[in-house]
């Protein structure tokens, strides 16, 4: 009895040690970034990566914000509409593909799924051609459109798979009650979709905010998103390297996605594991 308890605590200890090691390993880059962002340039060139700042200074953060704040708002102007529109259309698509099936809807869904596997690079040329024809080249609206279209495959997949587990009888009952297509969506289906809406919002927000390729290709100058601005900042070859500014700017670029996870993360896990909806 005694020895078995000791064995358990020993194996527990080993597990916790391994987990702790993994946590530290994952945290190292973040720690380095945070420490560096609060150091002076002289401190950075003299000390090592993990040393504590000799003088803690926020100058890197101030400079970084001055440089990237305009692009930060660009990113918001791109991300918020793109996320909302792609989620809304995804919900509508999923609703139709699971509850109002039409001839060929399965094939349609299958083809739509290809969109999830298309590498970004393959759509660059056709997308820029289309944006040019539409007169949206190098505009925020154009970039929003590209993100919405590219995201539809994912959002449709999310909503369709969620709605497939919702009993058909709900829609039938509502139709007999006299409700139409949009009334059913608005009054019955959407109110029960909170988990999957959250999953969709987080997923799309992360994808679009972190996107670099579409941003660098389909925008220019002052309309660029923060990821592109960050790259430009880090890659400047003139003057001394200001690593503290680079690190602070990178932190600023990463903060919104972090915030979204903190606020809506519990829905994310719940939504991914949501199976049957009890009627």
């Amino acid at each position: 009895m005694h020895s078995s308890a000791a064995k358990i605590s020993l194996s527990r200890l080993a597990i916790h040690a391994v987990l702790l090691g993994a946590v530290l390993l994952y945290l190292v880059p973040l720690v380095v970034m945070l420490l560096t962002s609060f150091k002076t340039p002289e401190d950075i060139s003299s000390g090592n990566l993990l040393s504590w700042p000799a003088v803690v200074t926020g100058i890197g953060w101030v400079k970084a914000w001055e440089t990237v704040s305009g692009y930060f708002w660009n990113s918001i102007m791109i991300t918020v509409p793109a996320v909302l529109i792609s989620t809304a259309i995804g919900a509508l698509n999923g609703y139709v593909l699971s509850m109002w099936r039409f001839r060929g809807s399965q094939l349609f869904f299958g083809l739509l799924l290809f969109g999830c596997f298309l590498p970004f690079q393959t759509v660059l040329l056709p997308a820029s051609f289309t944006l040019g024809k539409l007169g949206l080249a190098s505009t925020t609206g154009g970039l929003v459109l590209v993100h919405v279209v590219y995201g539809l495959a994912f959002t449709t997949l999310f909503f369709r798979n969620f709605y497939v587990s919702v009993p058909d009888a709900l829609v039938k009952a509502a139709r007999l009650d006299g409700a139409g297509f949009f009334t059913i969506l608005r009054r019955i289906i959407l109110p029960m979709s909170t988990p999957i809406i959250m999953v969709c919002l987080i997923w799309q927000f992360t994808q679009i905010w972190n996107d670099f390729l579409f941003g660098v290709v389909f925008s220019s100058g002052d309309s660029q998103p923060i990821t592109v601005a960050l790259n430009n900042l880090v890659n400047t070859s003139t003057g001394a390297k200001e690593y503290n500014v680079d690190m602070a700017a990178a932190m600023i670029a990463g903060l919104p996605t972090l915030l979204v996870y903190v606020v809506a993360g519990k829905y994310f896990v719940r939504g991914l594991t949501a199976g049957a909806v009890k009627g």
Partner: protein
Amino acid sequence: MATLELRNVNKTYGSGLPDTLKDIQLSIRDGEFLILVGPSGCGKSTLMNCIAGLENITGGAILIDDQDVSGMSPKDRDIAMVFQSYALYPTMSVRENIEFGLKIRKMPQAAIDEEVARVAKLLQIEHLLARKPAQLSGGQQQRVAMGRALARRPKLYLFDEPLSNLDAKLRVEMRTEMKLMHQRLKTTTVYVTHDQIEAMTLGDKVAVMKDGIIQQFGTPQQIYNDPANQFVASFIGSPPMNFIPVRLARQDGRLLALLDSGQARCELPLGVAAEGLEGREIILGIRPEQITQGTGEGNGLPGIRAEVQVTEPTGPDLLVFVTLNQTKVCCRLAPDITCRVGDSLNLQFDPARVLLFDAASGERLGLGAGNASVKDNVAHFKSR
């Protein structure tokens, strides 16, 4: 309150696929309770969805109150339906669930409140109105689903296996309640079930379906006593009807079925039948309760001695299994009979209740024999 008539209703999910519904033809009067019964996959739920307008028919017509509704959308047919899964709107309270259809139809709020109160009282769910469906037990959810249907006062109620998700005890209770409700409201009802007890107890009319075809349409008594074919005979009744393969012989113009229990033989007189039955493969159908224990000689019924192989005391009855013509036969006897496995029992059959089916097609074979001729036959049997 309405009549319902189905005229040659056909349904197919595409050319080349087998028909889901074939030439469905039936009509019920105002206030009648129609049961659609059959094994799963027989098309009964499809037929119900077609009546509701949730699926389109490919041929024929559906008439409610003599008005063709085949092309109408579900909301214009004035039908309410209770689903097997109840289909309560999960994010709405019980009150909102009941109100939903009334609100959509733009009923004034005062009238809605009155209607909800009436239905809640009728179904005794007043104390549940503020709850969400997930907070209700299965039986309570079932009541709410009924309440939602009752609130609209539609022309027609459709019930799609509404009791099949309840446990056995609750099912029996709700069955009685359902019947009470129908006696009180007298609304025309179509009720789908695969449970033959529900079919027998609830219905004014029963339509037994198989493979998209109505096998028989009639009152529960007609279905039970006078089944149109072997399928109907086997589907209705519990324990089910015994089907014994027999050879027929003809003697003095009368048909005799030959039974063999291994211990004894018996010639069961069947009455005067058309020529040509003898020599054919024939199935003899007899219900377990139509086999009785012989009380000795002299009551005139033909009998046979057979060895008891299994006994199942169910409480009200004693089910005894014997073998006749190499087929297991169930007899429903009085519970006070003492018999053990291996005993020999004297069993008697009521020839007037025996049915004959064609072995190949399962079609019922007319005996052309009224009771008179059977009695005649029995007299003849006795005199031998």
